[in-house]
């Protein structure tokens, strides 16, 4: 329950405001009133209502509607409450239901009738309100909840082995389980048979079915450690990481596209996926795994894994439009960035702590001790972080080269700096003052431009693709002057001269057949003109066409374009001739309003700002030059020239170094894309947002964590930089004493093994979550895990070698009556295979599975129209494509258009954290397994395999069955299947076998 009614009551110096969160026992302050008989009526009955429904808006800070209910003085202001007369009080009118609606609380659930009646009663009684009692929005500050208590090592119960169950009790897990079973008058089930066990273990640990041969070998293995050896073999398999990484990726929302509008590809997400697989396979200690994912770049600089892990923060959806197309200065841009940080904060806290922190974005958490301040404290940790591609591995050679070149560059720059300092000294400070003047003037010259930028060619991959654009005048006309105006676009940080051709000619023609050049720059490069127009004067010809032909395009960002803002054509009297002219071009991107052919003669082109500043700038620049000339010496000039040349050379060399491998991850430095600019570590201001509304910022947030009890400070030094903030968060998450982190992870692992967690709400250990069914076992596991090297493989071994895990899943009516949900684990839970397991099993038994690991995701769709909004056309995909015959973890996951077949089989939705898959049964699943192209193609593949492995029809049927379910069917069943195959062929048999319940269920 929320702590609306608990009190924090403390004596305070008179000048400090007294804030009582709720009711206190301070009789001395309480005014005598007609309600004396009901002691503390206001504190007990009224204040909690105000706190729960009103104070988030009506407090001294926000004072919505210029009204605050924080204290008596403000509450009685302006007749909202008329003491003694509820009927005349505006408050009562506002909160009373009229036609099912009340005007207050705004856009929220109205107060109940009896609550309104209480408020009326209180006002009629004179609205008694203790003089110094200040109210604050309700906040939970009660840490008296199981998950916030420190981990305590419990005593391992002594086992009394039940009669006839000699094998029960292999390790302490069983002792805890047995004790609870006994307490509930239950007993464990007997051990499952070996075929069931190897099937269970193999799917559980590597996500694939065992081969019939493996099953046979295990059944026949008489050694005492046969089971343990099997466990070791599976944990050592590289497929182990593929299976367990999938669980992790479900929780952290991994996908290969961004989601939202356009759902652009995220081609470099996969290295993070491979990193997770590798981390599991190498049995990375959990705290290292956490640290790499939150602050690997800070805590393990120079290691590829330190960057790869940061893919975690970037895993979730990202709004392309809200970041790239809308600037951060606009409301929608701010909203997008707020939601983006929210995704990061919730990913961290949901995943590692099992806390629903995101509830506190709009209001204090209603159930758990997390206030909005805490929440925005966490957002400030990510204040400078975005998601983008970043280099994680240059390779040792390149790295060495890079550091060598960088050092040289640094040294050269220092020498240059030294020369400048010398000059500065000689000028007695005049140089720097002039330079400041120049800089400030430069900032005044901001470009003025129309939203119609101009003409823009199609984008080309090569720089020498020929392009042209031409103006066709209405008739042959005498012209005298042609002017080309460059474009201005911030794209890729280019600005002025955007797309202005590098080599080109301007030609004129009367008939569009014979062309006469009037300007030729096709032999050497034309330097970027900025906004300076190219004026071609004194032409004096009669023409109808004016054409700009480009032989070398302008670079944009690793591609090439040609654009112009305007072409003006004038006669001898400077009269414009382009009215009613037409524009033709080799090609054009035609993306109005910004880019359109017709913009080329619309009379708009970008102009530099404040012209007087321009003039003053020219003067100041001249002065600066003159002053420099005075101080210069020939030696210095030579030295500088040499150094500058060397700097340029070095920069070029660094540029030319191989770029290295790239992962989509948390980033502060990256190439600008439209309005999406890197923060370069500059922290964005984060405020506590009223109702989560970006337009209603409250006080600045201070970086911090969620509090774990009342005494431990939760705030960080606000002067910490971006990197250090994340490092602090990583350290906090991995502190030994953290009550949530260790419990959270062992509960997840337990759940994946048993189908049900010890806490059945793996992402929520708060008051809305479930209680642990075995609290001591949970703590014992958490401590074992934490203190024994935080090894996942050890934990798996511990769990799967327990008697509890090895139980049969057989039903027992008596035990069922006591515990129908099997929350005490008196048997194993039968489970349906997950979408990936079904797909991978089909590939494996059909013989098509390519076990190759890692690399970019394979497509299960045809990709079309990537330039704008990519289309992911699943129905056009041919499942014969061998590239797709790999394990499902390597498939390319489209966020907005998930694979229909996988989705039907309850695959995780990559837009939400999925700690536990649904297991549903629908007729659409039946149709998918019967008729999907993948199933049909794999039935053919399977039949080919069977034909090559067995001769006679009955043998073929037997072989097929044993590959699919790893056991023999009854003679009658085999006979029926053989009969069916005889009539309809092997392919139909294979198709049918994929639909067996025994194939998709695990006992």
């Amino acid at each position, binding site marked *: 329950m929320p702590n609306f009614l608990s009190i924090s009551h403390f004596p305070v110096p008179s000048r400090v405001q007294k804030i009582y969160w709720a009711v206190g026992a301070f009789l001395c302050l309480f005014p005598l009133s007609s309600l004396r008989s009901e002691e503390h009526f206001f504190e007990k009955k009224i204040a909690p209502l105000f706190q729960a429904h009103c104070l988030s808006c009506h407090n001294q800070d926000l004072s919505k509607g210029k009204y605050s209910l924080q204290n008596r003085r403000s509450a009685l202001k302006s007749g909202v409450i008329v003491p003694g007369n509820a009927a005349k009080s505006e408050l009562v009118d506002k909160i009373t239901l009229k036609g099912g609606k009340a005007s207050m609380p705004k*856009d929220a659930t109205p107060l109940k009738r009896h609550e309104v009646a209480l408020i009326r009663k209180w006002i009629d009684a004179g609205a008694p309100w203790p003089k110094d009692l200040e109210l604050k929005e309700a906040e939970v500050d009660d840490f008296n909840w199981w998950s916030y208590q420190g981990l305590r090592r419990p005593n391992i119960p002594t086992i009394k082995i039940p009669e006839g169950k000699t094998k029960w009790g292999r390790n302490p897990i069983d002792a805890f389980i047995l004790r609870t079973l006994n307490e509930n008058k239950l007993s464990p089930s007997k051990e499952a048979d070996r075929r069931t066990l190897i099937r269970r273990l193999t799917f559980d640990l590597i996500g694939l079915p065992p081969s019939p041969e493996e099953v046979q070998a295990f059944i026949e293995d008489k050694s005492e450690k046969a089971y343990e050896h099997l466990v070791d073999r599976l944990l050592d398999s590289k497929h182990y990481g593929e299976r367990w990484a999938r669980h992790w990726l479900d929780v952290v929302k991994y996908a290969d596209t961004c*989601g939202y509008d*356009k759902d652009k590809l995220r081609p470099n997400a996969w290295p993070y996926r491979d990193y997770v697989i590798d981390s599991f396979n190498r049995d990375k200690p959990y705290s290292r795994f956490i640290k790499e994912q939150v602050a690997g770049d800070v805590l393990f600089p120079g290691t590829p894994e330190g960057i790869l892990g940061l893919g975690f923060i970037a895993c979730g959806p990202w*709004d392309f*439009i809200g970041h790239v197309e809308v600037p951060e200065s606009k409301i929608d841009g701010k909203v997008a960035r707020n939601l983006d940080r929210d995704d990061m904060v919730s990913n961290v806290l949901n995943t590692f702590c099992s806390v629903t922190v995101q509830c506190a974005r709009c209001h204090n958490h209603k159930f758990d001790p997390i206030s909005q301040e805490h929440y925005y404290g966490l957002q400030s940790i990510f204040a400078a972080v975005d998601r983008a591609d970043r280099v994680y591995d240059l390779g040792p050679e390149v790295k060495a080269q890079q550091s060598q070149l960088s050092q040289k560059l640094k040294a050269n720059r220092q020498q240059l700096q030294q020369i400048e300092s010398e000059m500065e000294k000689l000028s007695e400070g005049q140089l720097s003052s002039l330079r400041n003047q120049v800089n400030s003037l430069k900032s005044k010259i901001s470009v003025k431009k129309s939203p119609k930028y101009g003409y823009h060619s199609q984008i080309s991959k090569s720089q020498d693709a020929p392009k042209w654009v031409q103006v066709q005048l209405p008739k042959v006309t005498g012209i005298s002057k042609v002017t080309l105006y460059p474009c201005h676009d911030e794209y890729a940080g280019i600005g002025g001269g955007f797309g202005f051709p590098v080599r080109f000619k301007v030609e004129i023609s009367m008939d569009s057949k014979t062309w006469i050049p009037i300007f030729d720059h096709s032999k050497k490069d034309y330097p970027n003109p900025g906004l300076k127009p190219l004026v071609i004067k004194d032409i004096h010809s009669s023409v109808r066409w004016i054409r700009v032909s480009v032989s070398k395009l302008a670079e944009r960002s690793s591609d090439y374009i040609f654009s112009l803002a305007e072409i003006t054509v004038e006669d001898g009297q400077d009269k414009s001739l382009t009215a009613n002219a037409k524009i033709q071009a080799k090609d054009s991107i035609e993306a109005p309003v910004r880019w359109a052919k017709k913009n080329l003669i619309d009379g708009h082109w970008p102009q530099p700002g404040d012209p007087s500043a321009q003039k003053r700038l020219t003067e100041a620049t001249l002065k600066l030059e003159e002053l420099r000339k005075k101080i210069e010496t020939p030696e210095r000039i030579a030295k500088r020239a040499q150094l500058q040349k060397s700097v340029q050379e070095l920069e070029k060399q660094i540029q030319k170094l191989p770029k290295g491998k790239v992962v989509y991850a948390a980033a502060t430095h990256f190439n600008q894309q439209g309005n999406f600019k890197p923060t370069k570590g500059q922290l964005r201001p984060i405020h506590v947002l009223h109702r989560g509304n970006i337009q209603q910022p409250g006080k600045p947030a201070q970086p911090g964590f969620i509090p774990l009890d009342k005494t431990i400070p939760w705030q960080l030094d606000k002067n910490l930089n971006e990197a250090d903030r994340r490092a602090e968060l990583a350290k906090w998450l991995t502190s030994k004493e953290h009550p949530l982190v260790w419990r959270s992870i062992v509960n997840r692992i337990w759940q994946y093994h048993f189908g049900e967690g010890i806490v059945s709400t793996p992402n929520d250990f708060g008051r809305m979550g479930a209680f642990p069914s075995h609290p001591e076992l949970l703590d014992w596991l958490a401590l074992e895990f934490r203190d024994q090297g935080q090894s996942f493989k050890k934990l798996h071994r511990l769990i799967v070698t327990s008697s509890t895990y090895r139980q049969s899943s057989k039903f027992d009516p008596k035990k069922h009556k006591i515990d129908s949900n099997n929350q005490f684990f008196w048997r194993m839970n*039968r489970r349906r295979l997950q979408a990936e397991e079904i797909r991978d099993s089909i590939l494996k038994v059909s013989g098509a599975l390519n076990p190759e690991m890692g690399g970019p995701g394979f497509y299960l769709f045809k990709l079309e129209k990537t330039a704008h*909004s990519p289309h992911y056309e699943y129905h056009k995909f041919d499942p014969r494509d061998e590239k797709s015959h790999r394990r499902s973890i390597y498939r390319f996951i489209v966020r907005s258009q998930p694979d229909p077949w996988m989705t039907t089989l309850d695959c995780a939705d990559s837009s939400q954290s999925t700690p536990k898959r649904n297991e549903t049964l629908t007729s659409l699943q039946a149709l998918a397994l019967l008729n999907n192209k993948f199933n049909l193609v794999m039935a053919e593949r399977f039949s080919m395999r069977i034909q090559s492995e067995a001769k006679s029809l009955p043998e073929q049927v037997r072989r097929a069955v044993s590959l699919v379910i790893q056991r023999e069917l009854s003679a009658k069943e085999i006979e*029926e299947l053989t009969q069916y195959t005889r009539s309809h062929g092997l392919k139909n048999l294979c198709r049918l076998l994929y639909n067996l319940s025994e194939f998709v269920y695990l006992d």
Partner: protein
Amino acid sequence: MLNRRDFLTQSSLGLSSLALAMLLREESAGSSPRAIEVLHHPPKAKRVVQLFMAGAASHLDLWDHKPYLEKHHGKKSDFGEHVEAFQNGLGPWLKPQFEFKPYGHSQKMISEAVQPLGRHVDDITFIHNMVGKTGVHSQATYLQATGFQRPGFPGMGSWISYALGSINENLPTFVVLPDHRGFASNGPKNWGAAFLPASSQGTAIFPQRENPIEDLHARADFVNSTSDREGLNLLNRLNRNYQEERPQDSRLQARIRSYELAARMQLSAPEALDLSKEPKHILKLYGLDRMGSKYSKDINIPEETEYFGRKCLIARRLLERGVRFVQVWSGNDNSFPRRNWDSHENLKRDHGPLARGMAVGAAALIEDLKQRGMLDDTIVLWTTEFGRMPSSQGSTGRDHNPYVFTNWLCGGGVQGGLSYGPSDEWGYKPLDRSNPTQVYDVHATILHLLGIDHTRLTVRHNGIDRRLTDVHGHVLNDILT
């Protein structure tokens, strides 16, 4: 969720509570599992068809007549406050791009572009003071479709399927008819089940494709009807053997049943999509009397009419056969040339054909439902993600306006001939800015009409009790019969 006892004790209706409970349960016989066993109150409607105009359809040029704009056309726009436009559409005032005329007894003014709907205005309630939260298509589309601005939440149809189950298990409960050219912003996430059971997800049907429903039939040369039938029989026997050795696991039983249902769906779904038996006058009504014609490359009315009309007719056939929720989309993503309602450049060029095509189909659907007596318990909801600005962008386009737009409702339990919640004189914001209508209110109202209290249809997910209406929503009692 309400249990039976709560319902019986809380009911204060004239009808004997027990009898009412029986009445409300009646429909569930023979249909699929439903989260709400006993409805919260007597329903007015059973099914919903939602027409979603992707890209943001202009209220100003279709439904919300603004003489002010006609009068001040071309004059500098002035909103009396700072406006943040999505792009730069704060040019001069732009008059409605189509002529408005009064229709019906209510004399409702609607534009020539949607003139076919003129004959139904007396059955329609227009809500002119809808407000959104963002001018970004993706987020705004999510908001209208799922009640949340972000991905990861179930669509309205999923919630309703989850709550009420299907009326006819041989067909999907929630069917989506996407624009034939492609998906709108967010694609299938607009109708995903998210954290609800997969059975409540929208099933997309593409009537023009060779495979209108994916996986309905096996397309392989080795499969024929005998191999299918005999295979299914054998499969059922084997699965039954497996199930009998594992008594009390209801899932294994349900799985056998799911194959039987699948076989039935194979028969009923193609029948539901087959328009060949529809009489000529019905085809004509939906504008389908020249199906299969060749169309010009430019956007044009006959083509838009055929595609939207076909979806509307299929919608009617599905509703008639017991599909609970049908969602029809008009408009695909934002590629060029535009084939959606996002008319930044030339409103007349794009809205003209799209609106007329939509109006022919929607008017036919209303008329057809009415003549079959189905309009009484079917809700028709027309929606879009936001509206467009009264000022111009370029000279012939309009920018995004999330500050006000129009929805309309028709059918089961909704008043007709009503214009509810006016917008201001320019159609820029609601006239009464402190009392706008939000998507939560529309969702709450639809659930209400279906017999569901929107505050009590909840599912706990990751520790949070989720609702279609989040923590908001008021039933719009003023528009109900």
